């Protein structure tokens, strides 16, 4: 019994030791929330979205199998840190802090931060009108950071949400929410929520895939980066973007 236990422990250790490298040669484990329309979402039990299509194309280009792992957004970076996934495809915005900690590919989506309000709230015409307002952002997203960098940040009542910020804005519980322009337009166009864009995007956003900043992570990042570059050149990225958004968000 004790011997069996020791054996199990030893093999578990061995798997942990070389498992990472082995798994990465054959499969690319991609984490996403499954809750960010139209990038990653589920319909009739099937995972879909721009990110899913892009990562499948990357896998094909690399000759690797792609497995998707869905978890609450707040759990995704923990999964990356603890080696349970290789990267996150969830419109991860490159920020100084993140770039210091993770190895990013080159950006594959160029976007802007957008203020969204309930339909008819015309008095809010952009980020400059958010003084004294309640504004929702997703927990762990970089939009909170963007708001805090505004000179009048202290006058904004920032609320962080785990999910459902669109719903709470439509309900009038908050005055506005911040999201990337692309998915905000998509939400307004496709979903039955009374929302409208308020003004122009107020900050440029570059989205890319983060990898662990280790030798292994960086090697994998280079491989994925090369695949992304090839997909950009042969027009696949543009095709995928046109299919989901009707325009090309993969170029600056």
């Amino acid at each position, binding site marked *: 019994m004790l011997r069996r236990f020791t054996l199990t422990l030893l093999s578990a250790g061995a798997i942990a030791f070389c498992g990472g490298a082995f798994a990465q040669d054959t499969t690319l484990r991609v984490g996403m929330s499954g809750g960010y329309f139209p990038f990653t979402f*589920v319909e009739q039990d099937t995972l879909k979205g721009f990110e899913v299509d892009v990562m499948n194309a990357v896998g094909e280009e690399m000759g690797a199998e792609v497995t998707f792992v869905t978890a609450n957004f707040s*759990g995704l970076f923990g999964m990356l840190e603890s080696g349970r996934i290789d990267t996150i495809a969830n419109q991860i915005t490159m920020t100084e802090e993140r770039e210091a900690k993770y190895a990013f590919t080159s950006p594959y989506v160029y976007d802007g931060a957008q203020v969204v309000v309930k339909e008819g709230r015309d008095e809010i015409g952009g980020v400059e009108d958010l003084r004294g307002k309640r504004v929702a952002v997703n927990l762990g997203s970089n939009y909170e950071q963007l708001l805090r960098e505004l000179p009048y940040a202290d006058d904004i009542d920032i609320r962080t949400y785990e999910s459902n910020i669109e719903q709470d804005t439509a309900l009038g519980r908050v005055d506005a929410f911040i999201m990337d322009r692309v998915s905000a337009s998509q939400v307004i166009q496709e979903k*039955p929520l009374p929302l409208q864009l308020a003004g122009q995007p107020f900050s440029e956003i570059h989205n890319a895939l983060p990898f662990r900043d280790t030798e292994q992570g960086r090697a994998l990042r280079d491989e994925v980066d090369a695949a992304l570059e090839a997909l950009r050149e042969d027009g696949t990225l543009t095709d995928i973007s046109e299919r989901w958004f009707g325009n090309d968000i993969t170029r600056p």
Partner: protein
Amino acid sequence: MSVLDFDYMLGLAPILLGYLPLTLAMAAAGMVLALALACGLAVIRVLKLPGLNGITLLFISFFRGTPLLVQLFLFYYGLPQVLAFLTQIDGITATIMGLTLHFSAYMAESIRAAIVGVDRSQTEAALSIGMTNGQLMRRIVLPQATRVAVPTLMNYFIDMIKATSLAFTLGVTELMGATQKEAAGSFLYFEAFITVAVIYWAIVELLAWCQRRLERRLNEAYRR
């Protein structure tokens, strides 16, 4: 959007029900393991076993004193940074571990209370006719304590079923995780969450019915 989209709900229900077995399996596994652990802890507490008693007190204090979500994050994301081989633990195992440790702390106290609640005169009577400690426990104290403990233990089981909804934070797509993702695709949040609420409610009602039957059987000897 003021009217509920019933067609959507009817279409969603079978999809969500596909995730019910996983939810129930995690709760059932957690319950069996927690019950076993809680019995051990309760006995240690009742007999005040030297050494173990202190550890048990600390265990109960920690697992009852911190939120389940914090414990799940600790097991799943925190510990693997210190002990690399723990990365091999998947989300389902981590959830079951979390449920087991968390709920055993609560259940240990309710089992202890049930044991202590058996009148002292019963113990004295059993010992006076020459029963051993084992016989005393098996034949006199535990059957009576079980009757007292069942309602509260069922309470914890019901709570545990609902607590599995935290597992999506660890990447386990169970009932709640599936609902969140479907709602993100349709933006019919109200419909999606009503549907999942009804499913949880129905399961818990079914269990409550089983509990009433079980209690009736356990109470047979006391019926006048």
